[in-house]
């Protein structure tokens, strides 16, 4: 166990930050403890897998809480895309005008458009801001537990010294949850290595997937594309270094978190792809097939049949009436005498 020094996260600026976030930390410990009690009720041993499952459960709960915010954001983005022609219309109206009054009128008209359509580009600020502290708290709680067990830090929420000690004794796959890569034995090193590798793989695949599927391929040239490809490798490699320093409990949290993120990103690419990307093209085909299936069930002609029908009617009309288009006429028009 690597608890020789004082708890570093409690010092300096971060200590102050984590002090402010205490209510969230308290809530998290309670969630973990509650789930642990539940697992004990099911007959699992209090030391062992039950604690690891509690960590997983905590991550899932946090993701479930954040998901609605994400969903709203996705829907808002979709609305914005639908508004694009109207926005361009307004922008064209004020094209080339640089005076103060026109600029202000432009912003006002844009705002009015957003308001009337219940879409807002800035609506998405907050979920991003909320997310950071929440994940920081989770990290903090998991790192603090060994220190609580040692009596070096005061109790935090549901984790008094006894519970924390119970947590610290947990051993899964032959690794203690408080061990990190440097302090674990050979078997433990292998297990931790596998976890870090899985973490990196998740992260890499998430980025790769969104780059390949969810980006406009025409825009993927030159400097920007190079940067994207660099990023693809930079984050996983950073993970290797930080993964080695972190205790196993944090790694469990991290891997679960990455799997959740991957799932969410795949869901997003499937349902809300960026327009112009390969994923969007696939979605179009899929939607087309769905519509045809719906029509087949309802006994209606499919989209292709309908188009063919229309073309035939048009051709027939041309046969009988010639190519001259008939001018539309008012129905109640006075007859010529």
């Amino acid at each position, binding site marked *: 166990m690597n608890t020789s020094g004082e708890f570093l996260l409690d010092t300096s600026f971060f200590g102050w930050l984590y002090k402010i976030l205490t209510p969230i930390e308290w809530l998290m410990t309670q969630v973990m403890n509650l789930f642990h009690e539940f697992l004990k009720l099911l007959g699992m041993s209090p030391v062992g897998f039950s604690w690891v499952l509690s960590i997983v459960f905590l991550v899932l709960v946090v993701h479930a809480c954040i998901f609605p*915010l994400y969903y*709203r954001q996705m829907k808002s983005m979709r609305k914005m895309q639908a508004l694009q022609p109207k926005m361009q219309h307004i922008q064209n109206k004020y094209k080339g005008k640089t005076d*103060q*009054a026109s600029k*202000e*009128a432009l*912003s*006002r*008209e*844009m*705002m*009015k458009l*957003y*308001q009337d359509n*219940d879409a*807002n*580009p*800035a*609506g998405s*600020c*907050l*979920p991003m801001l909320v997310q950071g502290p929440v994940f920081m708290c989770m990290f903090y709680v998991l790192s603090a537990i060994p220190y609580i067990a040692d009596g070096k830090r005061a109790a935090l929420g549901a984790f008094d010294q006894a519970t924390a000690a119970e947590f610290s004794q947990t051993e899964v796959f032959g690794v203690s949850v408080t061990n990190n890569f440097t302090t674990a034995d050979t078997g433990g090193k292998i297990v931790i290595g596998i976890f870090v590798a899985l973490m990196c793989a998740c992260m890499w695949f998430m980025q790769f997937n969104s780059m390949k599927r969810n980006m406009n391929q025409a825009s993927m040239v030159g400097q920007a594309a190079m940067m994207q490809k660099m990023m693809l490798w930079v984050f996983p490699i950073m993970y290797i270094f930080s993964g080695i320093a972190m205790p196993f409990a944090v790694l469990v949290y991290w891997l679960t978190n990455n799997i959740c993120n991957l799932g969410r990103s795949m869901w997003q690419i499937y349902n809300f792809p960026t327009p112009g990307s390969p994923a969007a093209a696939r979605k179009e085909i899929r939607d087309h097939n769905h519509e045809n299936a719906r029509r087949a069930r309802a006994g209606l002609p499919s989209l292709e049949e309908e188009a063919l029908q229309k073309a035939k009617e048009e051709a027939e009309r041309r046969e009988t009436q010639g190519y001259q288009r008939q001018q539309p006429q008012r129905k109640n028009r006075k007859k010529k005498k």
Partner: protein
Amino acid sequence: MTGKVGSAMVRGVRWYQRHISANTPPCCKYYPSCSNYAIQAVERYGAFRGGLLAVLRLLRCRPWSRGGIDDVPQRYSLFYRFSWSKAHEEPRLTPLASDTKETA
């Protein structure tokens, strides 16, 4: 109209606009933005009453609010957003002449 405290507040907000806000991408669901709203409110109604309006405006900037055009009311009321309020104004598409003079 603005006293010492009011002008200090306006200077503070201007400092924020120049040094902090200018470095971040525009991200506001209201027009005018909260900082411009605060300046207008303080200049029109003084440090305390205008400041109160500005604080309420900040509290309005959160998810589940619709955003849009939200001007400082011509007539002071904390409830001007409600349609039953006498100070309620329909959103204006063109700025008032008095507003543009201040910002120019």
